[in-house]
């Protein structure tokens, strides 16, 4: 048989696919399963003028805004969940440095879904009579030709690149998610399908024969994928479904560092710029042994 293409890349090469000014869609939600190692590499490569799309942003948005990589961001949320406000996001938007476009959760998901289904726009009643309509992108009213009902027309998201974190993949780019997972993050599948290029970090790269054992877990077959990168704890300090918890200690530290731009630069120096490899970031966070404390045992469930 002819050799097939490997899509396994280093984190550096994978993130090099992103260009200054790109529209980048990010998976995960709140502070759960965002591809944080890929996000840190974007910061290290000093990407500029990015537009960010997600349905629910968190530390991913805040870090990229705090590092000066972002000119525009769209989402239904940007905060640090139980750690309160995302301060870099607040400063960026309040000062006018970053244009933030408000959406609701369904509006954002609809825009990804429209693109994933090959459509150029979608319709929704949700923005009617709300401040979502204050932005020019949400002022096109269309009338249903069958019932006469009014909807706001919303253009499909067409990100240049989508970045996600998943559980495993083979080197050909068949990406799997465990059946026990946070169903809030299912939108990752639509996000991937909406983008021109897709970069996925995974907890482990496995042999294709492992993937073949459970093909229904391959929710993103290789046809959708441009690069897979093996990054254990690649969502850290975000949680990753039932695999590991959010790192509370790191979250508190992040909150304190992000109180001022000066302090935040110290965070970037310590945990991003000086960590040329993911391994050195893990060491800064106490090493693999410390991070394993965030893992709790899988329980019996009749899935899969």
């Amino acid at each position, binding site marked *: 048989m002819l050799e097939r293409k490997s899509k396994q890349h280093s984190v550096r090469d994978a993130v090099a696919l992103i260009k200054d000014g790109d529209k980048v869609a990010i998976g995960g*939600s709140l502070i*759960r399963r965002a591809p944080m190692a890929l996000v840190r590499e974007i910061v290290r490569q000093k990407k500029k003028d990015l537009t960010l799309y997600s349905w*629910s942003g968190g530390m991913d948005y805040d870090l990229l805004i705090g590092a000066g990589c972002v000119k525009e961001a769209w*989402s*239904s*949320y*940007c*905060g640090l*969940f*139980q750690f*309160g*406000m*995302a301060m870099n*996001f*607040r400063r960026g*938007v*309040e000062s006018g440095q970053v244009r*933030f476009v*408000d*959406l*609701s*959760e*369904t*509006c954002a*998901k609809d825009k990804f*879904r429209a693109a994933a289904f090959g459509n150029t726009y979608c319709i929704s*009643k*949700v*923005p*009617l*009579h*709300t*401040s*979502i309509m*204050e932005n020019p992108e949400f002022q096109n009213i269309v009338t249903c030709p069958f019932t006469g*009902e*009014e909807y706001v027309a919303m253009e499909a998201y067409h990100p240049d690149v989508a970045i996600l974190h998943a559980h495993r993949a083979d080197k050909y780019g068949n990406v799997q998610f465990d059946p*026990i*997972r*946070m*169903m*809030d*993050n*299912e*939108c990752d599948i*639509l996000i991937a399908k909406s983008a021109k290029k897709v970069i996925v970090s995974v907890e482990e790269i496995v042999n294709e024969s492992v993937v073949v054992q459970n093909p229904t877990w391959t929710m993103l077959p290789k046809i959708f994928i441009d690069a897979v990168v093996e990054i254990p704890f690649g969502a850290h300090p975000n*949680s990753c*479904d*039932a695999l590991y*918890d*959010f790192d*509370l200690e790191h979250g508190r530290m992040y909150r304190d560092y992000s109180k001022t731009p000066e302090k935040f630069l110290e965070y970037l120096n310590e945990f991003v710029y000086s960590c040329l490899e993911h391994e050195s970031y893990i060491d800064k966070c106490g090493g693999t042994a410390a991070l394993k404390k965030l893992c*709790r045992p899988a*329980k019996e*469930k009749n899935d899969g």
Partner: protein
Amino acid sequence: MDRGYTLAELLAVEASRYVRDDEMNFVGIGTGGQSWIMAVGMPTVAVSLAQHKHAPNATLMIGPVLDPLLDDEYVPDANWEYDLIYWPCRSQIPLEDALGIFRLGKVGLSFASAAQVDIYGNLNIGRIGTKDNMKVRLPGCLAQTDHGAYAKRICVTVRHNKRTLVEHVDFISCAGNENRKGLPGGGPALVLTDKAVMDFDENTGKMRLKSIHQGVTLTDVIENTGFDLIIPERVPRTEPPTSEELKLIRLIIDPKGKFLEARITQEAANLN
């Protein structure tokens, strides 16, 4: 003053009266502390209490967990992602499909909180200040605009003060009652605070005092509201919880204060 029940218990019992059988009810997943109790803990106890008392087929959607077992023995000790994933429940479906339940008109009561609420029940969780002169950028709309558009009835729970109950909100994350043309849902129906219960006038859509909690005066309510509340001629006391309701809450539903004292979160608190 010891009323023999806490504010959180009073509000949970009051909210439970608006939960109807066979409907799905919505709460978000919130963050922690007092705001969590108002947005998540109290509403969850309200739905659970309604299931025990008059609405056995009512269901709850709490974030991604659809129709969870709500008695204390099944409720996890923490609300980490891991714990939510393993919380015994009848269904976990993709969030886009769970939110699709709204659009099919199957959500009865949805619970919301906000930084600002105005006389028509417009809610604001977007920003304080104008777009060009922003004082505070808040986290954003989340799913509030979605259930705001589609839920049959919205129950809003906030602190009763002039900073929160304002004449005009700075940003509309949930459409209030003055203009809902084209929105299928019923809009804001009920406002619960630490002082009173409010509803909305059927004709004008304006907020109206419904009952005042024990130990609170009418002057106290008026002085802490940032607009002219409609005050009916006779304003009753908010009906206190019965001993049966308190027993259900304290022994079966929430004996450890996971909900009404936010002990399931990383930040325990008290509404009083």
